[in-house]
C-alpha cells in the first residue's frame, strides 16, 4: 500500500509522540502577521524563551493595513499593533516583509510569491486560511496563538493526526465556472462541518488543469468546509511556478524539484474517504445565507423554510433569511447590491484581476454601488500596474486600492455600513464578518462580483459577458 502526500509529509516531520498521544510535529515554515502573533511573543518573553529557528519564521502585515494610504494607521490600536510586530521581529531576529519592503501583502499571497511555500513541507500560521499553501503540496494549516508560541519556541506543535479525504472532480467545467465555484460547490455538498478531522486532497482532471493560483483559491477555503488543511499534489505547474523565486534553492533546482515531486500521493495510496464530483454539475455558485455552505447555483432560487427537511434546517434557513433580509423562494438573481469587493487571500492574485479586466472594458459600475479592487500584495499591485489594469478598473468605476486584507474581515477602514449587501470575492459570509454587525455578504467568483457591480444586482455573469471562450478553468 502506497502513501498519500499527507502521510509522507506527516511521517517526515514527526518528532515523536507526546504523553497525551498526540504527535509532536515539526513545522518547517512558520508565517506570522500582526493580529495573532503579539500575544505569542508576549508569552515567550514571560517564559524567558527565544525563537528556536528565527530563519524559519516569516512575518508580514495585512489585516489592519489601510488600503487607501497604507502608511496611515487607522487608529492608535492599529499603530500599536504595527509597532509590536516590528519590535518583535527585530528583537527575535525574524524576517519581516514590512510596508516599505515592496513585498508586503496578505500572508497567503506573500508566501507563494516569495517561494517560501514549497511542496513536501509543513506550514503553520495563526490564520485559518493557511491551507492556501496546500496548493503547492504542503501540509499547511491554521493554529491558535498558544501554538504560535509553541512554534516560535520549539518549531513544533502538538497535533492529532488527521484522516485524509480525496475529493476527485473529473470532467470538464462549463464556461463561466471558476475555481471559486468549484470550492463553493464542494462546501455546499459536504457541509461547513463535513471536513472536521480531515485533510482534503483535491484531485482529478479539474485540479490537474488548474493554474497554481486557481489551486490556491480552492485550498484557501478548505476550512470553510471544516477541513483544517487541503492540498493538491505537486506537478510540473508547481515546479514551474516556483523556479526562480527568491527563497527557492535555485542553485540545486533539479534535485530540489525531483524531491518535491516525490511527495505526491502514490497511485495506490490509502484514503480514509473518497468523494467524486462531476465537473459538469458545477454552476456559477453564490451564497444566500450566513455560512459558506449556504450556496446555490446562480440560476436557483433562495431556499424556502417551508421545504426544509427538518425543524433544525427550517430554523437555520429562517435565521439566515432574517439576517440576510432575502425573500424565501425567490430567485437570487436580481437581488440589489450596495458594495462589490474584489480581493482577499481567496481571490486577490494577479490572475483574478487579469480575468476581471478582460470583461469589464466598456462597462460601468452601476450608480449607487461602491466597488473596490484590492490587490493581495504589493507585488500583485506592481504587476497590475505594469499591465495597465488599474486604469481599466478605474475606467469602469472601481476604486483601485493598495494591498491588504481589506473588506474580507474589516479590521481596517474598509467596512460595510449598516445592512449594506456586498457581492464579495472573499471567503466568509458570517454575520458581521465585513465590519458592520448587520452587514450582509454574498460570496462568489471575481467575475461574478464584477457582473454584480455593473448590473447593481446579483447577476449571472454568463448573460452579461461573453464567457463562452473561457477555458475549462480560467
Amino acid at each position, binding site marked *: 500500500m502506497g502513501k498519500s502526500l499527507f502521510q509522507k509529509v506527516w511521517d517526515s*516531520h514527526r*518528532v*515523536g509522540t*507526546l*504523553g*497525551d*498521544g*498526540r504527535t509532536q510535529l*515539526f513545522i*518547517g*515554515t512558520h508565517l506570522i502577521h500582526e*493580529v*495573532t502573533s*503579539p*500575544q505569542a511573543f*508576549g508569552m515567550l518573553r514571560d517564559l524567558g524563551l527565544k525563537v*528556536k*529557528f528565527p530563519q*524559519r519564521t516569516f512575518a508580514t502585515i495585512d489585516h*489592519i493595513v489601510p488600503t487607501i494610504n497604507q502608511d496611515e494607521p487607522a*487608529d492608535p*490600536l492599529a499603530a500599536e*499593533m504595527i509597532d509590536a510586530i516590528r519590535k518583535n521581529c527585530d528583537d527575535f531576529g525574524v524576517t519581516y516583509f514590512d510596508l516599505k519592503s515592496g513585498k508586503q501583502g496578505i500572508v497567503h499571497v506573500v508566501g507563494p510569491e516569495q517561494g517560501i511555500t*514549497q511542496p513536501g513541507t509543513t506550514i503553520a500560521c*495563526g*490564520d*485559518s486560511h*493557511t491551507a492556501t499553501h496546500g496548493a503547492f503540496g504542503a501540509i499547511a*494549516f*491554521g493554529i*491558535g*496563538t*498558544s*501554538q504560535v508560541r*509553541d512554534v516560535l*519556541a*520549539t*518549531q*513544533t*506543535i*502538538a*497535533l*492529532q493526526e488527521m484522516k485524509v479525504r480525496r475529493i476527485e472532480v473529473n470532467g470538464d467545467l462549463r464556461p463561466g465556472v471558476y475555481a471559486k465555484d468549484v470550492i463553493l460547490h464542494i462546501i455546499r455538498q459536504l457541509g*461547513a*462541518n463535513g471536513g*472536521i478531522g480531515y485533510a482534503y486532497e483535491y484531485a482529478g482532471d479539474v485540479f490537474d488543469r488548474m493554474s497554481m493560483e486557481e489551486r490556491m483559491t480552492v485550498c484557501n477555503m478548505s*476550512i470553510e468546509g*471544516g477541513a*483544517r488543511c487541503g492540498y493538491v499534489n505537486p506537478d510540473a505547474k508547481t515546479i514551474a511556478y516556483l523556479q526562480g523565486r527568491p527563497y527557492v534553492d535555485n542553485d540545486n533546482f533539479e534535485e*530540489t524539484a525531483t524531491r518535491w515531486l516525490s511527495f505526491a500521493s502514490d497511485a495506490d495510496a490509502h484514503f480514509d474517504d473518497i468523494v467524486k464530483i462531476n465537473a459538469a454539475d458545477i454552476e456559477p455558485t453564490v451564497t444566500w445565507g450566513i*455560512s459558506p455552505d449556504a450556496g446555490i447555483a446562480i440560476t436557483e432560487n433562495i431556499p424556502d423554510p417551508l421545504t426544509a427537511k427538518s425543524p*433544525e434546517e427550517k430554523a*437555520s434557513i429562517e*435565521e439566515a433569511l432574517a439576517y440576510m433580509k432575502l425573500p424565501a423562494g425567490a430567485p437570487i438573481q436580481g437581488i440589489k447590491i450596495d458594495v462589490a469587493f474584489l480581493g482577499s487571500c481567496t481571490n486577490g492574485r494577479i490572475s483574478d484581476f487579469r480575468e476581471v479586466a478582460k470583461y469589464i472594458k466598456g462597462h460601468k459600475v452601476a450608480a449607487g454601488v461602491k466597488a473596490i479592487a484590492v490587490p493581495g500584495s504589493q507585488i500583485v499591485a506592481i504587476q497590475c500596474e505594469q499591465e495597465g489594469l488599474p486604469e481599466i478598473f478605474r475606467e469602469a468605476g472601481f476604486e483601485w486600492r493598495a494591498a491588504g486584507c481589506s473588506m474580507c474581515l474589516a479590521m481596517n477602514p474598509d467596512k460595510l455600513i449598516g445592512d449594506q449587501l456586498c457581492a464579495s470575492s472573499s471567503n*466568509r459570509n*458570517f*454575520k*458581521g*464578518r465585513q*465590519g458592520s454587525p448587520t452587514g450582509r455578504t454574498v460570496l462568489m467568483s471575481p467575475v461574478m462580483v464584477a457582473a454584480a457591480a455593473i448590473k447593481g444586482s446579483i447577476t449571472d455573469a454568463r448573460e452579461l459577458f461573453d464567457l463562452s471562450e473561457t477555458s475549462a478553468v480560467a
Partner: protein
Amino acid sequence: MALDPVITVSGKGVFIPGADIDTDRIIPARFMKCVTFDGLGEFAFYDVRFDSETGEKTNHPLNDERFAEASVLIAGVNFGCGSSREHAPQSLKKYGFNAVIAESFAEIFYGNSTTLAMPCVMASAENIGRLREAVEAKPDTIITIDVENLKVSTCCDLEFSVSMPESAREALVSGRWDPIQELIDNDSAINDRAKALHYV
C-alpha cells in the same frame, strides 16, 4: 511545569441556540485590535448581545438575568467554526465560561480551548435538548462535566455520556493541556528532525 489536572468542571449553564456559531460571532474582528488577550471578556458575543443601532441589550440568552452566573456554555453543531483566532476561547474564558458542551466543534477552536484548560465535550442532539430544557426550566441547575469518565450530570437526575478525543481527555486529566514544556523537553529530537529536512 506541572499544570493543574482538569478532572471535573461544575457550574450553571446557558444554552446559545444555532448551528455553525463562528468565531467572528464569538469575538468580532474589530475587538482583535489588541496586543494582549486582557479585556476580551466583555466583548464575547458582543454583536448579538447589543443592538448595533441603539446599543441596547438584545434578548440574547447571555443578557438574560436568569443565566447571569452561567459558566457552562451549551451549543449546537460546529461550534467555533471559522477563524483560528484564539481570541475566541480567550474571550469566553474571560467572560466566565469554564467548559462548553455542544453537538460538535470546529477543530482549531477545539484545540485552542483545550490548551486553555477549557474542556469541550460532545453530546448527542437529544441530550443537548434535555440539558437545555433542564437549565431553562431551572437556571440554578448545577451541571457537572466529569472529564475523566466522559459523563455530564446535573443535580437533578439528568446524566448522559459525552465524548472527546482521547488525546484531549488525557491532556486535561493528566495536567498536560498546555504542551509547551513537553515540546521544549524534546529538544534533541527536534534538532535531529530539523537536520533530516532539506529545507530547514
